[in-house]
């Protein structure tokens, strides 16, 4: 038995040694200096409410008065919560099973209207949550992502041209008709939208759209006529995307591990909040690893205002976030929704 235990210990030690070498060889940009610094504008963000939520909720898909509408993995199923997150119930548009609608679908609730846009199957479902009636229209686009509401029941989406593989912003109406195509917002990269993949966010107070690139520090602001207002940069120095793609038989996939510069973004009341993936040179590694860092920018010009941290919640991973008004941050974790007060960042 002693011999066996010694052999087990030797094997475990060698395995840990091997894993340590692998860890050391990882080319993680956050192990090195990234050439920028952050200015922290708040020391502690107040947590207001934690709501347990075992169902996988992905995102906020609309607000109405004191209510929040949240969407999850099932098309047509909407979770309704009050702003205090004290009461959550569901409403459902009784859709038939539509093949391949999930998982790439986007829900927009302008109560009582609901719109579900299928990015892979190129349809738009316009429904009413009170009457439970709906109609389905085909979209005259390629596969698309990054849907945002553009007022008057129009939507802005990032369409992949199936001939050139370029990703372009287009405006479509609720019947799926393309109203307008962009004027010089996106670079023609023939990449199925991978290289400049990002997050599109809309601020209903400024009527501006902001597109924050995921793999580079590019910020593109445009208006509802799809005209560029400005192109700016986040505070880091990653101006070129560190991502390799493989094109094969009409499809594109990520070839090597890409480095995420900007994880997520949301704009509200003239401010742009970016959840960054890069550690600044003046940041403590454990501070950065144990929290999510947000950089705040002026939406009108893209100028940097400052940064703040949100701590991880009980070991759960951070999924995405939304800003309500000027001072309320809603964070979606694996099994909880947590709201924070941002007054101290102003």
């Amino acid at each position, binding site marked *: 038995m002693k011999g066996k235990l010694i052999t087990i210990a030797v094997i*475990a030690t060698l395995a840990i040694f*091997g*894993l340590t070498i692998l860890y050391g060889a990882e080319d*993680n940009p956050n192990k090195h200096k990234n050439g920028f610094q952050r200015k922290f504008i708040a020391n502690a963000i107040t947590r207001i409410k934690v709501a347990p939520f075992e169902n996988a909720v992905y995102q906020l898909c609309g607000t109405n008065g004191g209510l929040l509408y949240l969407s999850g993995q099932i098309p047509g199923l909407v979770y309704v919560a009050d702003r205090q997150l004290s009461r959550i119930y569901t409403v459902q548009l009784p859709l038939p099973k539509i093949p391949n609608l999930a998982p790439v679908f986007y829900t927009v609730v302008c109560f009582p209207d609901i719109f579900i846009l299928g990015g892979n199957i190129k349809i738009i479902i316009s429904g009413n949550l009170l009457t439970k009636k709906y109609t389905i229209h085909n979209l005259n686009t390629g596969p698309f992502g990054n849907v945002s509401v553009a007022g008057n029941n129009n939507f802005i989406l990032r369409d992949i041209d199936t001939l050139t593989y370029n990703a372009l912003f287009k405006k479509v109406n609720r019947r799926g008709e393309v109203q307008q195509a962009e004027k010089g917002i996106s670079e023609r990269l023939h990449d199925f939208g991978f290289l400049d993949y990002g997050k599109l966010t809309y601020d209903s107070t400024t009527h501006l759209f902001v597109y924050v690139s995921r793999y580079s520090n590019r910020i593109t602001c445009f208006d509802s006529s799809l005209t560029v207002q400005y192109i700016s940069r986040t505070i880091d120095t990653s101006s070129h995307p560190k991502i390799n793609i493989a094109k094969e038989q009409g499809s594109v996939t990520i070839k*090597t591990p890409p480095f995420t510069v900007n994880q997520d973004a949301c704009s509200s009341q003239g401010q742009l909040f970016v959840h960054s993936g890069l550690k600044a040179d003046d940041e403590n590694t454990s501070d950065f690893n144990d929290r999510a860092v947000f950089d705040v920018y002026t939406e009108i010009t893209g100028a940097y205002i400052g940064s703040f941290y949100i701590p991880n919640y009980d070991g759960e991973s951070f999924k995405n976030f939304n800003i309500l008004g000027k001072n309320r941050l809603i964070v979606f974790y694996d099994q909880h929704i947590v709201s924070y007060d941002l007054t101290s960042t102003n």
Partner: protein
Amino acid sequence: MRKETVYEIIAIALICLFVYTGLSKLINFSTFNFQLGQSPYVNHIANFVSWSIPTAELITTLLLVFKRTRLVGFYLSFALMFLFTGYIYLMLHYSYFLPCSCGGILASMSWKQHLYFDAFFTFLSLFGILVPGPMLKIPKTVLS
């Protein structure tokens, strides 16, 4: 349940696991190789790892099949499963990019489920090493 039966069940479970995962990696070799290329920890040695892992799994299977070599098979199985468990722990907690997990039926598992799955088989291998197996009858002529 007799110790010998437990010993056999553990060996059969590990043989099934390694035959399935080893063969599915070889059958879907290009996919496996591509997925390893997306891993921040092994992307620079993806070609080497994509051959060596299924080879090691199939060698372990062979060692587990024969009673004379089964203990060595359990040691190798423990080494592989310990490495896999540690690798998934690293990916889950420290990796800056989490690609798809792997091919075959295990693809339906999340990374977290995969961690528990691999940890279970690591303990099973450990159990196989520590539980005394059936005594082998060695001919007297060999001893004399």
